């Protein structure tokens, strides 16, 4: 157990180290010399050159540079944003709440509708099942920017129910919900379809098993069979898929936030790429990969709690198979 967890944590640290190395060496891989790359499109004065050289320790040998930069990153110092003339850490900290609200909101939508539709679809074969299958087929094929645009056209321009831009962070809870509803739906749509399909497959898999038949013949009420015998056992793959969705959600947020001009971390990433503000791109790339690997580790560690029959090592094998 302890050995397994420490092995996984080691693997996680390794992935993060490699990622940080890739993200760091990008400065050197990019065409041109590092200072011009980092200051692209802006006038370089001796002072700024000195500041950038100092920030990236450019006078040191390559690997010393990397380790010094890594040391800075680990203490939360990602350098200064070129476009905002502000500390990258602070900049991200300011914009993170909006993105967390957005992701949290759409996560609720994904879980409620994804699992709900999956259950309904598995329990009601025929017309209901077919409708859900077609609906999820289309929703998984709809990119977030397309659903965002359709939502703006219908609910914001034609019906005028929701605002088409802004984050509503000044108007308290109600304002946030009002501003983030359309973005959250746009973000959730693809993943809801995916989760509904996985839930449906997992439920059907369990429904065909003997223990369900036995429970039914023993006279256990239908609802209880579904809740305690089918859904409970189908939870493993469902939780795994939710975990793997996190990376996709974080990346799709940047598209959705751009469509709705939401002032979050995602639109910050896109704006930083457009404005060639590389320190911000580095920090956000690292952040997204870190969140992804940590969430997936947590999901793997949760598996034995969801299904006590599984030991930790088995659960990883199951993950690999699914």
């Amino acid at each position, binding site marked *: 157990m302890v050995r397994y967890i420490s092995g996984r944590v080691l*693997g996680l640290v*390794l*992935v993060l180290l*490699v*990622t940080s190395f890739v*993200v760091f060496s*990008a400065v050197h*891989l*990019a*065409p041109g010399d590092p200072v011009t790359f980092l200051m692209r499109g802006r006038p370089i004065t001796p002072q700024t050159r000195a500041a950038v050289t100092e920030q990236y320790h450019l006078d040191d040998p390559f690997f010393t540079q990397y380790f010094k930069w890594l040391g800075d990153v680990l203490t939360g110092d990602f350098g200064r944003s070129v476009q905002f003339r502000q500390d990258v850490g602070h900049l991200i900290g300011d914009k993170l709440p909006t993105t967390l609200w957005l992701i949290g909101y759409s996560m609720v939508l994904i879980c409620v509708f994804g699992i709900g539709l999956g259950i309904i679809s598995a329990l009601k074969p025929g017309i209901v099942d077919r409708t859900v299958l077609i609906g999820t*087929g*289309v929703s*998984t*094929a*709809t*990119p*977030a*920017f*397309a659903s965002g*645009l*359709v939502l*703006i*056209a219908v609910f914001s*321009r034609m019906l005028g129910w929701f605002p*088409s831009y802004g984050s509503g962070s000044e108007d308290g809870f109600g304002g946030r919900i009002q501003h983030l509803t359309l973005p959250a739906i746009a973000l959730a749509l693809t993943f809801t379809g995916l989760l509904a399909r996985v839930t449906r497959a997992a439920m059907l898999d369990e429904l065909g098993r003997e223990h369900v038949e036995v429970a039914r013949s023993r006279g256990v009420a239908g609802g209880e069979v579904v809740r305690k015998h089918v859904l409970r056992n189908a939870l493993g793959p469902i939780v795994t898929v939710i975990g793997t969705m996190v*990376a*996709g959600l*974080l*990346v*799709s947020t*940047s*598209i959705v936030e*751009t*469509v709705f001009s939401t002032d979050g971390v995602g639109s910050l*990433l*896109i704006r*930083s*790429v*457009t404005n*060639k503000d*590389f320190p911000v*791109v580095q920090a956000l*790339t690292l952040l*997204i*990969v870190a969140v*992804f*690997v940590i969430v*997936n580790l947590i999901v793997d560690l949760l598996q034995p709690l969801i299904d006590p029959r599984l030991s930790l090592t088995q659960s990883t094998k199951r993950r690999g198979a699914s």
Partner: protein
Amino acid sequence: MTAATATAAAPTRRGATARLRGIAAQGPLFTGAVVVLVLLTLMAIFAPLIAPYDPNAIDLGNSLAGSSADHLLGTDQSGRDVLSRLIFGARTGLLGPLLVVVISTVIGIALGIVAAWRGGWVDSFLSRTMDAMFAFPAMLLAILCVAMFDAGLTAPVIAMTVAYSPYVGRYVRSVAVQEKARPYIESYRVQGWSGWVICTKHLLPNIVPSVLAQSTINFGYALMELAGLSFLGFGVQPPTADWGTMVNEGQSAIMKDAFMPGLAPCFAIIVAVVAFGIVGEGISDRVAKREK
């Protein structure tokens, strides 16, 4: 794609009509999806012949015109014909994902077969590396590459190829491991054939149909992600007609209550992705049936 399906179902040579009948036997949904993909491909190839207008012909006096006999889908802000841009947009819209899928499939097949065939430390090294790369979403890698180099189709296509290859590789490995365990492979080995010959002449042809099914589904995803990158302004650059950039340009038109320039390319993307999904799943169903 379709040719491979037919050969997958019947090892003997068949005529074109028999092939068509084979596609029709898969059900109306599959047939419809194949027709859609064929039409899209033809549309991309023959765009200059089909398009009613020059996709880049600007007519500022006719900005954001609604649907009419002259312009079936209306015009965008610069007065360009939306239908013509949609038809030309199929070119970059399909070319990008085609490159990503073809290259990543070739790399993935190579990695997967080597891992499955050699086993041992080669297998664990390749598998671990491929697993670790899943932590890097394709879109994120593409965005990082655009930040390093310049916007345009090249950087995103290379990044997406790098990000898709491990997915194909892991899938190929799982299929190849099963195939390798079959008795015919062992019997070729006993007869003294080299690993290279067995892999390329016997193992590879037998796993190609299932890999192809997977690649067809990936095509849809790649199309979606590349369109997303173009939408963000990182992929195909304006004024080139591309579905993603058209959505980007159409967004401001939506604020002026002109929906067609933005929603028409969205619809095209969804139809294409759905069609690729249906065809991919159809092929994989066929392969599964054949295995039984």
